[in-house]
């Protein structure tokens, strides 16, 4: 029973974690919360869904179609994030911290309404490409979709971890996050690095959107809002700005929600109360989050 709920929680948590990475990476380099990130998730879901419905993907085998659709969602979301940074945030880089925040909310409203008006104001059914198979071991049941989500999410997170810690570009990202002006003195193209973090965050968000669509079977113009909010919470829980923190935060939040809803009678009424109470308690004792480092104010 607990193991079964852990499986539910891990699946949910890996989706949260993928989205949370987008929030935390942008915060790391810009100290800005990109509230339009939830719409990147939505865009990835729509792009992959429309691709899957298109005739030239349906002729392929299911495996190829899924990979291509996910790549399509990834590409559209990454480009959208890049465009967002260039048009809505970069011009406001020196305008104080409130202006880009408001700009982000504006972008979010704009994108939701654009999809509402031009694509659909209703739920779209996400095509089911392969029959869902159930596997059972030691009393725990897991289906092929959950395995796919866990596999893709964990794979992407390991890749990201290696990229950030083992490559020159990754080092440049970390340097920019530590101190942008010193990094630029060392010859790092800070503007390019900031664009790169948006690109990576957007790509992960797009994949998360596609997986979200597959898992729940429907997509809608406002589908990004709640997962976005939860993922943001996960990023704060793990320590915003910290990449490992976002991953752990996502898993912890997903598992907490599933255990609360799955083990307590009336738990689904209380799961948000429980999850957010734990968030508050953690922040009371560790305001920097579980994995964040305390950074003294730069004066």
């Amino acid at each position, binding site marked *: 029973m607990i193991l079964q709920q852990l499986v539910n929680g891990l699946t949910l948590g890996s989706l949260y974690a993928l989205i949370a990475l987008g929030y935390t990476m942008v915060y790391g380099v810009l100290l800005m919360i990109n509230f339009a990130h939830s719409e990147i998730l939505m865009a990835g879901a729509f792009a992959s869904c429309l691709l899957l419905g298109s005739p030239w993907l349906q002729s392929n085998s299911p495996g190829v179609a899924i990979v291509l659709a996910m790549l399509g969602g990834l590409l559209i979301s990454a480009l959208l994030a890049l465009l967002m940074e260039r048009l809505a945030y970069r011009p406001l880089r020196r305008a104080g911290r409130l202006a880009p925040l408001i700009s982000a909310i504006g972008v979010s409203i704009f994108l939701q309404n654009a999809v509402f008006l031009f694509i659909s104001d209703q739920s779209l059914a996400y095509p089911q490409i392969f029959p869902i198979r159930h596997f059972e071991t030691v009393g725990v049941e897991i289906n092929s979709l959950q395995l796919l989500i866990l596999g893709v999410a964990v794979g992407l997170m390991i890749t990201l971890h290696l990229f950030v810690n083992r490559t020159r570009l990754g080092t440049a990202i970390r340097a920019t996050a530590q101190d942008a002006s010193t990094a630029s003195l060392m010859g790092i193209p800070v503007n390019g690095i900031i664009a790169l973090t948006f690109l990576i965050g957007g790509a992960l968000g797009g994949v998360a959107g596609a997986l979200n669509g597959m898992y729940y079977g429907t997509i809608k113009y406002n589908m990004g809002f709640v997962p976005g909010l939860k993922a943001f919470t996960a990023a704060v829980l793990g320590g915003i700005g910290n990449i490992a923190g976002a991953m752990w935060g996502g898993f912890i939040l997903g598992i907490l*929600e599933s255990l609360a809803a799955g*083990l307590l*009678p*009336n*738990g689904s009424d209380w799961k948000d109360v429980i999850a957010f109470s734990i968030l508050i308690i953690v922040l009371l004792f560790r305001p920097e989050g579980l994995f964040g480092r305390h950074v003294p104010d730069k004066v």
Partner: protein
Amino acid sequence: MRGVTMRTLVGILAAGLLSAGGCGPQEKVVRIALALPLTGDIAALGQGIKRACELALEEAHPKNRFPAFRLEIKAFDDRSDPKEAVDVANRIVSDPRVVAVIGHFNSGCSIPAAQVYARGGLPMISPAASNPKLTLQQLDPGWKYPKSVFRVNTTDDIQGAYAGDFAVKNLKLSRACIIHDKSAYGQGVAEEFRKRFEANGGRTLSFDGISVADKDFNALLTRLRDLSPQMIYFGGDYAGGGLVVRQARGVGEKAAIMLSEANLDPEFLRVAGPAAEGCYLTFLGSPSDLTPTAQSFVEAYKARYPGVEMRAYDHYGYEAMNIVLSVMEKSGPDRARILAALPGLRYQGVLGETRFDEKGDTLNKKITLFRVKDGKFQPLR
């Protein structure tokens, strides 16, 4: 003889001049407000009712039923949000040209908004809100306003009881898990079901609320599966119902599933997919395609809006609008006089005969039962 004809002629001319003058800028405008969810999760249902009301008004125009003033519809969007609904209600009440309001759709919106309309003495006819509290609140000793709430659909105490009877007496099921979407409507109908189900000897294993926006109910449904119920009852609209059914079958739930009427929508079938097969649904009254008296409306609607899918409450919106029009024909465009005429109304329309009881609820208490078969809603009885 000759003089008489001359005088008639002059009279006709004068009348023509007067009415021509009436089309000028000082022409009197009378409004019927629509307060419906036009955007948001269940926008499709609100948009359908709006189309039906506009159709009713268009049909009234060529017959020139209201020569003394220009009648128009003004639509307001409550986004299914109670806070928004109260704001909309305040705007509607403060417009003196509005003589009646059709709406709201959700019980959660209708209940607080009704108090605003009552304060302004504005008659309100809901085409869909089904929580009994909407009209019951007027009998509260603290209710100091005129009774101004009416509805053309029947209520959830009738629907929940019907479902509770059917589950125990016809399906012979006695162990149920109940889920609702935490809305005034969803929770209300789930409680009514529970009351009757337990009175019939059934046992409720669990009673849970879900936040529809979460989309993920796997944890809850896994727990319910392990309680091994014989049936699951869901109270709420299709935004949650489709997902619950899909995920319940996904975690291997084999129990019968029964849902309240706001799931009788093509979108429920789209979201639930093949999992919808075999689900039972109750509907308030009967849908337009099964109502003999509604056939002319169905034809007119399809002719006016070709290619548009009809929604479950369109004929209720049409009826509510026509009731307002017919009352206004006799009593004129005045809030208080319309309000005075509604309780004694006997109206023959697309829903059959509509009369209101002392609370303002329709006496037409029919419920229809459906089962999903081959991806379609099939009426059972």
